[in-house]
């Protein structure tokens, strides 16, 4: 097996994060946040990409990253200014870097022309510095599998020196001990090269009470009989060469080796001769008992134990199964709770206590399981920066992407589905929304357009919005197009809102010519369908001359919600707790009929539309009158509040969302279904959808498609 293959996956994952980080740092620099930490962070990101690339032998990536790194190094040492022009080059370099990473993963190689162009620019920035340390990077790596039970790596070149005696004089200085280098270990290493005769000079050893722990008092004269090349001996002393007096007299090399690595500081003049004269204690390192280094020690350590990394990668499918199982458990637990609630507290105190604990633990389990799939939206948001940059270049428009809330966490399944709709919406904003610079200036706006990409949690849902400060939706043109395409009758008099929403109709495209940026025959209807498939909604707001704002509202998870069970006639419905503001029994004098057939309720001076659920959802047996029912006031996204008329509040329960679309079909006003503790199926209300239905009914009086929720009950 390729020993490195197992790390490549980790490396590429890491690269994705590092590239996203780098993007963030470069953007921060561009926005004038030029402190050292930002530069350091950017440097580290490139450094890490390069480090891994070297290990896997991605040469092109290594050499590009190296030059980029040199430039950033110069910047963090204040030799180079991170000004706008230089940053522009870095940002292009970042794109090339990302391409090279993709190429290393097996994607198409990026065009060499772009790479060499950017590379040339970087070289110019790096100036003399890159030239200096460009070449001598010692990538002496060859991907070799670790064969640990093998002998020493091929240490016998063809013209190996003959077996000979090498005389070594070795006198440590105190600094060597301060760096935790141990002379005994060096002797042990030397012994692996051949036979060793070691004589210690203890002349300078002071009286016991004068010895300092980190003092250097010993010297050694060593005779090594070996066939190993001189380089092998030098390598042993590699780390200590500056911390000791070292003389190596090697017959095989001394003749043509005028400067052996030696004498960092002058040794006491007579040290060597003194050592020769005094009869010192001798240690024969060839005696196995003298030093505990059995030659086979390396092989002896070769273990059986397996790799056990701190993180594991798991199939999403397995997690999905886990999430489903937990969902089923929640339902079972609700059933047990319901049964238990009928028991007498006196007789079954312990059981009831247990059920209560089970309830708490169940919630915790569920939150934890969901957290496994939660990820910040950053991973998809950061990709958009590049998109905006490329589009500005392609369209010749100046634009800047402002991102907020990129740390907002949402289920991974939701994140994956977001990339396409976001890409499409940003393309639209860039292509249709933002005006060219001259037009903007004429309208009194800054030449540079702003695209705002935001995410936030709101009432248990995630709200993602793409806004621009462009020209807004051109309503006359949209209406004209819609009529031309037969999407609306020619004599229709739609409201502004309705016109704005026409861009969501299938087959709608307003671009005069199909540009290679956004008009590809598919439009916002694809976005709408995708978002609806996830149980989300699309909202459009536009102000002519000031820009448009498209909002995607999505469930945080596609699995569970806290619900209030309400009874309407013979049916139970679930209202998401997060959308409920209050519940009240209205006084007759507070409700008013309005023109068009609707009803409003005045609450503390405000008027809200009240909706008879029974009528809207065609539920039989209900009191649809506001005066004998209850009104549940719910918040509907950004659109304000409405009141739902119900017969009874049954209770609060955590419910597992089952998709209606997957099992039946999409039903307006219904977000999904669930199974209650008593085993009955109940519909989960989509309060925004209910509001739309109610307004349509009383406003435009259009035919409504409503499905009887009861039809689903088996």
């Amino acid at each position, binding site marked *: 097996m390729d020993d490195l293959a*197992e790390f490549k996956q980790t490396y590429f994952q890491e690269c994705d994060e590092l590239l996203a980080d780098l993007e963030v740092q470069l953007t921060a620099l561009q926005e004038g946040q030029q402190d050292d930490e930002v530069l350091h962070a950017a440097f580290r990101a490139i450094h*890490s990409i390069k480090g891994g690339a070297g290990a896997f032998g991605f040469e092109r990536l290594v050499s590009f990253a190296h030059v980029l790194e040199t430039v950033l190094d110069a910047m963090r040492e204040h030799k180079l200014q991170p000004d706008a022009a230089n940053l522009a080059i870095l940002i292009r370099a970042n794109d090339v870097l990302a391409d090279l990473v993709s190429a290393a993963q097996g994607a198409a190689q990026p065009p060499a022309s772009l790479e060499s162009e950017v590379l040339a620019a970087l070289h110019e920035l790096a100036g003399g510095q890159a030239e200096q340390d460009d070449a001598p990077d010692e990538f002496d790596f060859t991907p070799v*599998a670790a064969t640990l039970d093998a002998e020493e790596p091929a240490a016998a070149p063809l013209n190996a020196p003959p077996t000979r005696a090498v005389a070594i004089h070795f006198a440590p200085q105190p600094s060597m001990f301060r760096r*935790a280098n141990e002379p005994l270990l060096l002797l042990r290493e030397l012994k692996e090269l051949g036979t060793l005769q070691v004589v210690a000079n203890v002349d300078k050893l002071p009286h016991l009470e004068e010895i300092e722990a980190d003092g250097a008092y010993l010297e050694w004269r060593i005779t090594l009989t070996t066939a190993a090349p001189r380089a092998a001996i030098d390598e042993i002393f590699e780390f200590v060469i500056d911390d000791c007096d070292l003389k190596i007299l090697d017959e095989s090399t001394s003749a043509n080796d005028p400067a052996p690595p030696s004498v960092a500081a002058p040794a006491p003049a007579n040290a060597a001769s003194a050592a020769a004269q005094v009869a010192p204690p001798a240690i024969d390192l060839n005696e196995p008992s003298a030093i505990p280094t059995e030659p086979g020690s*390396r092989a002896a350590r070769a273990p059986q134990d397996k790799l056990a990394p701190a993180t594991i990668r798991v199939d999403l499918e397995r997690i999905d199964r886990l999430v489903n199982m937990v969902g089923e458990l929640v339902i079972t637990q609700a059933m047990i709770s319901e049964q238990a609630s009928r028991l007498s507290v006196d007789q079954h105190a312990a059981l009831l206590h247990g059920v209560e604990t089970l309830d708490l633990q169940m919630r915790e389990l569920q939150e934890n399981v969901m957290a496994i799939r939660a990820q910040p939206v950053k991973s998809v948001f950061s990709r958009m920066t590049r998109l905006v940059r490329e589009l500005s270049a392609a369209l010749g428009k100046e634009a800047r992407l402002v991102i907020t809330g990129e740390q907002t966490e949402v289920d991974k399944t939701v994140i994956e589905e977001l990339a396409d709709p976001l890409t499409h919406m940003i393309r639209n904003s860039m292509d249709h929304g933002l005006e060219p610079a001259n037009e903007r200036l004429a309208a009194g706006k800054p030449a540079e357009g702003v695209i705002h990409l935001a995410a936030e949690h709101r009432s248990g849902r995630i709200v993602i919005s793409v806004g621009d400060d462009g020209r807004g939706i051109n309503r006359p043109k949209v209406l004209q197009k819609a009529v031309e395409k037969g999407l609306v009758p020619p004599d229709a008099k739609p409201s502004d809102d309705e016109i704005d929403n026409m861009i969501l109709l299938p087959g709608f495209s307003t671009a005069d010519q199909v540009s290679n940026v956004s008009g590809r025959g598919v439009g916002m209807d694809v976005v709408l369908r995708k978002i609806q498939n996830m149980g989300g909604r699309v909202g459009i707001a536009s102000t002519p001359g000031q820009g448009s704002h498209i909002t995607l509202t999505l469930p945080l998870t596609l699995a569970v919600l806290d619900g209030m069970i309400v009874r309407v006639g013979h049916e139970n419905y679930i209202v998401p707790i997060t959308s409920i503001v209050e519940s009240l029994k209205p006084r007759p004098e507070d409700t008013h009929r309005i023109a068009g057939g609707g009803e409003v309720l005045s609450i503390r001076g405000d008027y809200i539309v009240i909706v008879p659920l029974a009528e809207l959802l065609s539920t039989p047996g209900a009191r649809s009158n506001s005066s004998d029912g209850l009104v549940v006031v719910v918040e509907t996204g950004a659109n304000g509040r409405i009141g739902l008329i119900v017969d009874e509040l049954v209770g609060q329960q955590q419910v597992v969302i089952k998709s209606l679309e997957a099992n039946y079909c999409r039903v307006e006003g219904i977000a999904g279904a669930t199974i209650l503790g008593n085993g009955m199926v109940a519909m989960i209300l989509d309060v925004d959808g209910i509001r739309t239905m109610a307004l349509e009914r009383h406003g435009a009086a259009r035919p409504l498609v409503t499905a009887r929720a009861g039809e689903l009950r088996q």
Partner: protein
Amino acid sequence: MMPKKILTVDDSKTMRDMLLATLRRAGYEVIQAEHGEDGLAKLEANGADVIITDINMPVMDGISFIKACRKRQAYAATPILTLTTESSEEKKAEGRAAGATGWIVKPFNPEKLLRVVEKVCP
């Protein structure tokens, strides 16, 4: 014989994983840390016979980490190896000045890594 304990400090997961795999297979016990501060905490909790640390890291870089280790009596004599991408004398000297025992030049192959560790492991 108790396996020798090696603390690896690197902010790159790829590098940590590669060190982990190579060292584990050679019979070492490996403890991982993501930066200097994490390294000091892991050292407090687990101890180590050899420390391998990257230089460029967030929160606490390798140089500060080495200095902090050397200040602690218990780790004044623990071998510390630095991971450097450049084999430049400057980088090696920086580590040495802080008290590093030796260095490993990245990218390393497994054999070379083990040879260096073996060289300093008490």
